[in-house]
């Protein structure tokens, strides 16, 4: 049992909104992702059971949407913008600095399960470049010192 009973009942409730239960697969995946931060086969199995659909239908939908992470990510999911405005103001250098400081590779998670660094496309904050999004929050007008400070804070907070 991976998903909590609370999430399962939320999924069950949500499914009632649709004339066809298959339509609830995507919201169900969102609930599962919200709770776990990623998706995997055992969650598909549980969602399939709650909704009464086939395992493969859930697995197909989840694999179709590439922005659902299929592996566990760090507690802080750092998405550095790599598009033109941020790039001109040194986002590439910033990414390399982050990776070096955290001792990890792009897309991989640090051993303490705290950080995952990825590069993403424009997040619509060009006026405050360079910028990054960490989980649901924007951090803008970044400098190396600012990044150092943030990392220290997160490490302390754990």
């Amino acid at each position, binding site marked *: 049992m991976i998903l909590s009973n609370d999430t399962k009942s939320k999924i069950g409730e949500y499914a009632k909104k649709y004339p066809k239960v298959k339509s609830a697969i995507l919201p169900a995946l969102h609930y599962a992702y919200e709770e776990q931060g990623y998706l995997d*086969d055992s969650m598909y199995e549980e969602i399939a059971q709650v909704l009464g659909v*086939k*395992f*493969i*239908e859930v*697995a*197909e939908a989840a*694999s*179709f949407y*590439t922005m659902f992470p299929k592996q566990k990510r760090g507690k802080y999911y750092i998405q550095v913008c790599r598009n033109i405005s941020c790039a001109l103001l040194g986002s590439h250098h910033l990414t390399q600095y982050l990776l070096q400081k955290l001792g990890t590779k792009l897309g991989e998670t640090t051993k303490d399960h705290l950080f995952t660094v990825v590069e993403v496309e424009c997040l619509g904050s060009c006026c405050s470049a360079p910028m990054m999004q960490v989980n649901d929050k924007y951090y803008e007008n970044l400098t190396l010192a600012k990044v150092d400070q943030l990392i220290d804070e997160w490490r302390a907070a754990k």
Partner: protein
Amino acid sequence: MGDFNITVNGKTVPAVKGQTVLQAALAAGIDIPVFCWHPQLVPVGACRICLVEIEKFPKLQVACATPAADGMVVMTESPKVVKARQGVLEFILAHHPLDCPTCDKGGECDLQDVTFKYGLDYSRLQEPKHRNIVDENSTFDDLQIGPEIIRNQNRCIHCYRCTRIVDEACFEDDLGAYQRGYHTEILPPPHREIRNLYSGNVVEYCPVGALTNDDWRYKVRVWLTKQAKSVCTHCPDGCNLTHWTFHNKIFRATSRPNENIDRGFICDIGRYGYQQVASSDRLKQPMIKKNGELIEATWEEALNLIKTQVSELKSKLSGNAFFGLIGETSTNEEIYSFQRFLRRVIGTSHIDSRINRKRRLTFGEEVTSRAIAPDHVSYQDIDKADTFVVYASDLHSENPITALRIKRGVRYRDAKIIIINSRSTHLGVRTGATNLLHKPGTGLAVLTGIVDAAVSSTTFDKSAVGLSDQQISEFKQAHTELLLPKAAAMSGVGESDLRAVADSLVRSSNVVIFCGADFSRYPYRDEELLALDNLRRICKSAKLAVLPESSNSVGAELLGAYPNQYPGGKGSDAKSKFEDLWRGPLPDFSGKDMIGILEAINEDEIECGFIFNADPVRVFPDGNYADAVLEKLKLLVVVDSFMTETARLADVILPLSTFAETEGTRTNWEGRIQYTQSAIKPMFDSKPGCEILELLADRLGVSFGQGRPSEVYGELNKSLGDVLPVRYEMFKSEGAIYDRPKHQPKPGFNRVAYNAIPSDREYPNFLTVGNADHHRGPNTERNPSLLKFTGDPFVGLSEIDAKELMISDGDLVKVESRTGKVVGNARVIAELPGKVVFLPENFRELRPNLLMGLKEKFDHVKVTKM
């Protein structure tokens, strides 16, 4: 004609309401290319190749998903359409490897054909092609995704026909499309393979070479082959097949869609079941037993030996010292010739085809006399029914295509399935079926309990089904031991479940009741038929179908392969008619059935026999007895295609051509008579059945001059015109249905007698026999492809029993009964109820009939770990 007309390419075409533009055009013979569309699947419009121009539509429309409307003007080949198709193909080919020379689909590939017709000879796309790499060290991108199926993702054009066939048409869940765009991958779920019973269809209907199977791959190019129309002989469903041959060898079998039967989908048993034709144990030449050993001989030697020995025996004994057994997979013409040979030439009425029955009086004899007969049910009735009752049958493995038809009813008409069985079967999976799982041997209690629940209900409208109060009270008085609370307790099925089923049956307007092979093995077969007839009485409209065992069981019944029946189901009064027809005297009308024959051999009354395409030692429910008894015969002539257990006992063996080498007709469970072409010439020194029987008759002094099936059928048609109103030539187009004689049911309920199965302390388990996955009956183990799915025999044990006996998967166990024992590897089957032992009947190393005692009414066994 149609409801309205549309215009396609300037031609007026009739269309029916609900039809799509594509369907209307195809029906009128106008071709529109398709990749993703299939007549049995819901259109999705995924491939865009069927784009057509429709007047007043601003954009091109997909013909497969656009409903036809009155007055529509459609152009399928206008310059705009051709250009659009070019564009679609350019995108489809953007990532297609164009490896036609090494692709197995080349020559029958939809993409190849359509590209040849519409495609450009260049591409404007500069991007490198995406390649799905399976193995970095290999230049091939093949991935084995099932025991038989290989995937090459690069060739895939993402039409999703395969995944839709698996889901929509076959109700399975072992293939899906993962990811999206050109990253899309067709794969089974993680840690699984595609191995459902219908999996071969995805290969047949893949429009490109993305899915291929080991069976056909890289063996022959399709344009070199010839095709022969055939009918599957593995079960009585009668699916239509095409055999693809080259140099007198069959390379594959595919579906030959028949709207009345299979609708283009066949099971893997039919698809790979042709391989047995080239089995290593084929009998190549006639054989004669000398000093206890079978040695090869010529036809001349074998026939002469039969002649001298039969003449010698006949001079001493009457025709009654002879017998004949014929297998129910033989053609109608072979069956007819065989019984004519025995009756007219040998002079005996001891003929039977029901070699695996334990009870003496069976269907057609005892039961018809009590005026209970199955109704004339056809596939069309399945399409009309709203409730199905499947009694004592593993329909999925015994009649896979009938099961598919039923499941289709569940999906498209919300039909309900009620399964009454002592073990759970695959039909119940994902069909929302009501499973009444009862204790072994208590089916009668379940059936009678349901009838009681119905008639006792306050809402039961007895006048609607023509029942009177008196009949109901008589029913209750006659069955005091089987009424509701007792029936539920006896069978282990919940009382409320019985009531719910009764309620849904009474409310259904159209019920079809199926009973199958498990049923014929039950000790209470006839009583159960009476109880099923009672069940039929409580429904507004219900039909009862008894599914026969083999592909031509219905033909055997019809054409006189039974002892007390002349061809056409005629009785003793037809004797003089057949004496005229066959120009000679016939023996006494009544003869012995299978059990009677064996008993008579045992008592030295019968000394000589002919066994044609049958293996009683392997399937008769007391294998040791059949073996010992047949050994006693002075002369045993076996005509068979394979070296069977029975053939080993023979004094003379004549090699018989298989179904693929023999022209003829067979009658499926509906009573539909269908014609099979011979795909190849007889292999080795074998001969087709009719020719062998004519040779034997001729050698023994009575020539009929009918060595060819068409000649035999000519006589059948002449003499049985009232039953078989079809000429031989007519089969070449489509089968004809033989109408069973109708029986008037007597009013009221039947009285059902029942004795509970006594418990056996020494042998506490109950033996059930069935089919392993991808096998059916005793012949399928000769097909290598099917052995990939289930290759080894096993002893199926329930979880409870396995735990109690401390047995786990793969352990060597001994199964014993009072008459014999077998040894095999255990397999724990979660769905099996406690105290039930399941043995597949498909493997010669583990024959369940060795455990069955002829004198024992029930098959009690004991399992021990070795």
